[in-house]
């Protein structure tokens, strides 16, 4: 019975046209996130090694994560969030999450490649995006729920919020373990190393951009000088 079920599914997969196949794969990889967050050890391994995940799905999750962050600031009832609506800049808000996320991914990749990490950058990025899924599926309904609660009932709200964050952190940890084929101790050490690495990257970026702006200012003044002389 089981095998037959499988074949019936696979027939739909090799159905009409390429786009349907791609969409199907995309749909499958989205759906696979539910498996990953409930069975992280198994899930992350298959995500990478059995190619159950896709970058497209990962991008989707990251985009949803950013969207929900902003939505949360705007739509959560004022009893539960202190967001100065008049000062919020959506792009700033998104950027302040996206930049650290990417820098941390790069730092982790840079560090682990040197120390026998099995994961490629693609794998790390994908795994980390999949680890954001609990945040998405808990926080989105909580925005709605916040508008149905009073201030005194807030503990229910905050417990669930904290739970989603803890779940995400746990998934990040397990995800890195499975992606790099590390033990828990080594993973922990490399989490710390990653943060330090991210600091170094940010520092270098700062230096780079300040040099760039200096160089730019030099050329601008050079141009002005020439224009001034010519006149």
């Amino acid at each position, binding site marked *: 019975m089981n095998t037959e079920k499988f074949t019936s599914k696979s027939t739909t997969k090799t159905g009409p046209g390429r786009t349907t196949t791609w969409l199907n794969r995309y749909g499958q990889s989205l759906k696979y996130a539910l498996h990953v967050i409930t069975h992280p050890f198994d899930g992350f391994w298959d995500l990478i090694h059995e190619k159950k995940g896709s970058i497209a799905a990962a991008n989707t999750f990251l985009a949803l994560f950013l969207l929900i962050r902003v939505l949360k600031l705007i739509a959560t009832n*004022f*009893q539960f969030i202190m967001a100065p609506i008049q000062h919020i800049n959506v792009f700033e808000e*998104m*950027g302040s999450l*996206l930049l650290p996320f*990417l820098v941390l991914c790069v730092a982790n990749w840079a560090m682990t490649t040197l120390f026998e990490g099995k994961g490629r950058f*693609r794998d790390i990025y994908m795994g980390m995006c999949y680890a954001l899924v609990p945040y998405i599926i808990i926080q989105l309904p909580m925005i709605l729920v916040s508008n149905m609660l009073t201030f*005194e009932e807030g503990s229910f709200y905050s417990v669930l919020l904290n739970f989603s964050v803890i779940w995400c952190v746990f998934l990040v940890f397990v995800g890195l373990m499975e992606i790099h084929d590390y033990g828990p101790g080594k993973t922990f050490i490399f989490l710390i190393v990653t943060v330090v690495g991210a600091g170094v990257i940010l520092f270098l970026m700062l230096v780079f951009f300040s040099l760039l702006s200096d160089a730019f200012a030099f050329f601008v003044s050079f141009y002005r000088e020439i224009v001034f002389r010519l006149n």
Partner: protein
Amino acid sequence: MMKKAVSFLLALMLLSVSAAFADDSNSMKEDGFSTSYSYNYDYWGDVQMSPDPYRVETVIDSTTLGLENLENTRISKPQGIFVRNSDIYVVDTGNSRILQISYRNGNAELKRIIREVNGAEPATFKTPMDVFVDEEENIYIADQDNNRVLMTDKDLNVLKTFVKPTDATFNQSSAFLPTKITVDVAGRLYVLATNVNKGFMKYENDGTFTGYIGANAVKVNMADYIWKRYFMSREQRAASESFVPTEYENMYMDDKGFIYATTTVFSEYELLSDTAKPIRRLNGIGNDILIKNDRYPPIGDLDWKSESLQYGPCKMADITALKNEIYVVVDRVRGRLFGYDSQGVMLWAFGTKGSMDGTFNRAIGLEHMGYDLLVLDEMKNSITIFTPTEYGQLIYDATDAYLNGEYDYSAELWENVMKLNANYTLAFRGIGRSKLRQEKYEEAMDYFERAHAREEYGRAFKQYRKIWVEKNIWWIILILALILIVPLLIGRSKRMKWEVIMHEHGKVHK
């Protein structure tokens, strides 16, 4: 795919960085201060310009009092001011005298010049700093450089002299230099003296010294302590500052016998976290019982730059308490007055430095006469008298009405305030409370949301939610039922379909 994704993310990043530089600060100068004369802080700590709560009624100085013609001595460096009934007492420190001015309906008249008393040696003053007049018009004078506080009757016959205590708790090698005084209803005298950091000195009404109240707790920094204790030589230790509590700046006794005190000795970073407590209300045993129910503690301006003396945080030179525990402080750094209600919510702020009427050079004293405010300026040598405008009076009346239990009348007044100032948080809260009492929950929620009153919003919302659920209970049950039944039906139909397929499969294979 991957490349595309990365380039998209990079573009997003750049966008966000460029957007970060856009800022929308209004009504602020570069140094972060408000440019408006009257303002208020909103929930986010942003300055919101407001109508003027007070206007200048009159300015009393040497010219208006006719002092030039009379004695040819202008007021010089006045340090203290006191109001009893309709008389203003000003301590003209530079001329070692006290001016008694009667003030009625905007007209000030010099009543008496006190330069000496009967029955004390010496009879004249030397650097008098403060004056207090009790209900029987007995006059208390802090005569600083004569090291005494005099108590006289209204004809200036000395009744009592308070001098340096012989008590061991008072450092006998230092002089007794009273700067500020106040007296409670039982005739107990409280003295703020220079170089005394144990709080206010307290004298019983028979003139005996009975101790100190309201001393600041000594704050010892762990690192400092270890450094001083183990790494300094004895000579270094003796030369360095010892850990001493801070001193007070000024005080005022309200009609309930609590002492409002201000201090200007604190570190800036302690202000917003409310460990500095620049304004205090001391009870009989010297504990601070000031109520602070607002998001920001009462510290005056919330923004400041600290590069120079001009730009530090507010330094409250004096404090006075009106009816209903509303208190007003005056900041000598930027010449501003701040009014707070009994819950520590800022009612208004106004004033600035300058030479026009209504501005100050160096405000040193503050008193009130009804709702009028009197500000003494030691550089301009003048007293500025402020009267509440319609807006200012409405705020007081609404607060009054609420405390008297006239909630609906109070809401009416708050609505008038709202018409004059649509950014006034307290008005929204006041109206919201009244709507809540009238069981107009949805409207109440709207007002509370504008006022950022979470608890009160929660109370209104609870009722609103209850009514909503009762009204829509059948819909809720229907939707819940659908949510439960529909998946069941779908599951069953799927299974049936599957069985049909299996059945046909079986047929084919056979």
